[in-house]
């Protein structure tokens, strides 16, 4: 009987202990953060093996752990999702009631997320901070219907990336400055085998990736003074004379033999492409692909222009889910990461993460100014300089669908299956139909 009583008491104590532990755990504020970054960007960059393994560049995990040490009541879980599946994951997670608290949102998705009440309106202090301290192109990217909906995290723009070696071999000492020069040089840099197949592209696009089709075109469109959509988003105006001129300028590359639709920007590291218009985030892939030859081969210049230099820009911004039960904690974490200035570097933690590990351009002014070593390097320097000429793609409802339509029609023109005017007329008709649904 006595043994039985002891057992019951022990069981009750154990139960109590479990319950207490559970309640402590429950008392913690748990935040789920969904990112589109790869493994090393989340876990950090290490060098060496075994006992010699050393962290050389902090990933998001290390920053989050630092925050959790400072705020033991907060627990942060990082969910890493490939970019191509990011939006799907958001949709599925929301449908099943397990939405993350913090997102990194591509600005093109932002309109629908805002219009459907998915995003939480940032606190006034965050909005003020964004207006005062971030680069204009990134502020525009995080602005939807005239209101800031998050903290700009990453800004992307485009430059001409060229192979210095291949240009030199053909006697070119400098990259092209104007589009006409680009067309001339591309045809001279293109090498064909006996059967006429291009073995070295003077210039390469990429038909299967929408951003690689639409962003260079938008840059040219804005360069010649055209517009994609009317200011009120009620009409697509890409089939204007300027729009046709911009697409005709691209088609010149095909007509003069400087490229063909089989070209791919991904073959640049194999030194099969002399010139391409590429985004700022491609640096790490080039370094890995070219290895020791990187410094000798890679050159970066502003995108060649027709009338005035313009390049397309895009933004990713940090946002909080409106259904989150921990909105304040989420914004506190984001504010700590993005606005707290670290001395003596005068940079923010997010800025360091973006520049040192992610390999993207940060959006905050001081982060752009105070990472001289990394942002002034061979690749990134020109991208930073060209931010002043960057124009963000419009934040319009059904942005992804509209972008796909424009990309498909441009590719039809590349293949010569439609004239520039016909392709843009067809794109305009389809896009107008979508705009009429939402505006």
């Amino acid at each position, binding site marked *: 009987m006595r043994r039985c009583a002891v057992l019951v008491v022990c069981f009750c104590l154990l139960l109590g202990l479990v319950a207490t532990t559970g309640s402590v755990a429950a008392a913690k504020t748990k935040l789920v953060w969904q990112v589109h970054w790869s493994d090393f960007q989340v876990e950090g960059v290490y060098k060496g093996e075994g006992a010699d393994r050393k962290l050389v560049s902090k990933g998001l995990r290390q920053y989050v752990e630092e925050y959790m040490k400072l705020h033991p009541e907060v627990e942060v879980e990082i969910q890493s999702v*490939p*970019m*191509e599946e990011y*939006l*799907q994951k958001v*949709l599925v997670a*929301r*449908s099943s009631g397990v939405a993350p608290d913090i997102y990194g949102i591509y600005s093109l998705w932002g309109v*629908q*997320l805002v219009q*459907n*009440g*998915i995003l939480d309106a940032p606190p006034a202090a965050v909005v003020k901070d964004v207006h005062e301290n971030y680069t204009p192109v990134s502020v525009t990217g995080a602005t939807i219907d005239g209101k800031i909906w998050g903290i700009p995290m990453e800004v992307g723009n485009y430059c001409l990336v060229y192979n210095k070696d291949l240009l030199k071999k053909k006697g070119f000492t400098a990259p092209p400055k104007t589009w006409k020069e680009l067309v001339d040089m591309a045809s001279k840099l293109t090498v064909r*085998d006996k*059967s*006429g*197949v*291009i*073995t070295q592209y003077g210039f390469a696009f*990429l*038909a*299967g*990736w929408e951003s690689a089709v639409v962003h260079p075109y938008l840059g040219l469109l804005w360069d010649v003074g055209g517009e994609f959509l009317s200011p009120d988003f009620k009409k697509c105006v890409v089939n204007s004379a300027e729009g046709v001129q911009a697409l005709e300028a691209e088609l010149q590359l095909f007509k003069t033999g400087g490229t*063909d*639709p*089989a*070209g*791919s920007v*991904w073959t640049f590291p194999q030194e*099969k492409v002399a010139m391409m218009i590429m985004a700022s985030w491609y640096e790490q892939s080039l370094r890995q692909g070219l290895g020791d030859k990187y410094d000798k081969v890679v050159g970066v210049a502003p995108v060649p222009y027709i009338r005035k230099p313009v390049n397309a820009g895009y933004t990713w911004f940090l946002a909080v889910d409106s259904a989150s039960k921990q909105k304040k904690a989420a914004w506190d974490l984001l504010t700590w990461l993005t606005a707290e200035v670290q001395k003596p570097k005068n940079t923010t933690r997010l800025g360091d993460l973006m520049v040192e590990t992610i390999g993207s351009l940060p959006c905050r002014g001081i982060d752009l100014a105070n990472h001289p070593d990394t942002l002034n390097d061979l690749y990134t320097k020109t991208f930073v300089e060209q931010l002043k000429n960057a124009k963000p793609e419009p934040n319009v409802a*059904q942005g*992804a*669908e509209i972008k*796909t339509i424009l*990309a*498909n029609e441009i*590719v*039809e023109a*590349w*293949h010569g*299956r439609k004239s520039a005017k016909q392709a843009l007329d067809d794109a305009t008709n389809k896009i107008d139909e979508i705009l009429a649904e939402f505006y």
Partner: protein
Amino acid sequence: MSPGPTHARRRSVKRTLTGYLFLSPALVFYLVFLVVPIAMSLYISFRDWNMLVPMTGSRFVGLKNYTYLLTRDELFVIAVKNTIIYATGTVFVGMALALGIAILLLRVRGATFWRFVMFAPVVTPSVAVARIWGGLYRPAEGLANAILRMVHLPPQQWLADPNICLYSIILIAVWAGIGATVIVFTAGLKGIPEVYYDAAKLDGAGPWGEFRHITVPMLRPTILFLSVTGLIGAWQAFDLIFMLAVGGTEAGTSPVRSVIVLALYLYQMAFKNLRMGRACAGAFLLFLIVLGISFLVLRVLRKGGVESYE
């Protein structure tokens, strides 16, 4: 006293209930994972739902999604056309080749080894298949153009030329799936009694006569099975085309309009364009098309020993 009719009925009911009780796990599985999703899809196909809000907050639009797809969406029509070409090419060309190979393998030494070789692509992941063929199809340094050059034919832009890129992908799909078809045909061929061929030889039939009047009729159940399962699979084709032609930053060079098939169209409509209503309507149209084709194949092949499939 013998048991009356009531007792017999009770026993019959009890037996039926017992049967259903044993079947219940499978029935529940089908109900949860098949019937309910199909019913939900049908319901969504009549609504304008973007998945960002609860389904209850979506708008009822009647047949609008269906009429849009059938009358106004050029890309849907292109996707249907491409899918018909893809399905016909992969299934019927694949079957014709597989039957030829299966007949040859019955007559050669080391047939097991060759069957293993033929079957290897079937168990190779689509990603690997896409990678390998992506390399073979490279215009400048790919093996496909090297072969063409050897026989003095002009090289092709296999995946970039809008006129041939879909056929290039069909070729890969046939290569990747032919092993399984060969195995099934081999089993079918081995099931044909030799006595028919002996009798035909006595009657003076040649190899073509034997093939036409014995092999093909006797293989009708096999052909029916392969046609129906092959067509159902081909109409749902997605992975190979997605990896070779479109899809993310590792994308290829194919013009999307030339290679888009229905499953890819539905995926883009649902998860990229956030138009789940339209995607579900498209899925139902796909279901009706597959159902219609399956019935057609059953009808065409119903004579000659396959009546039991009806």
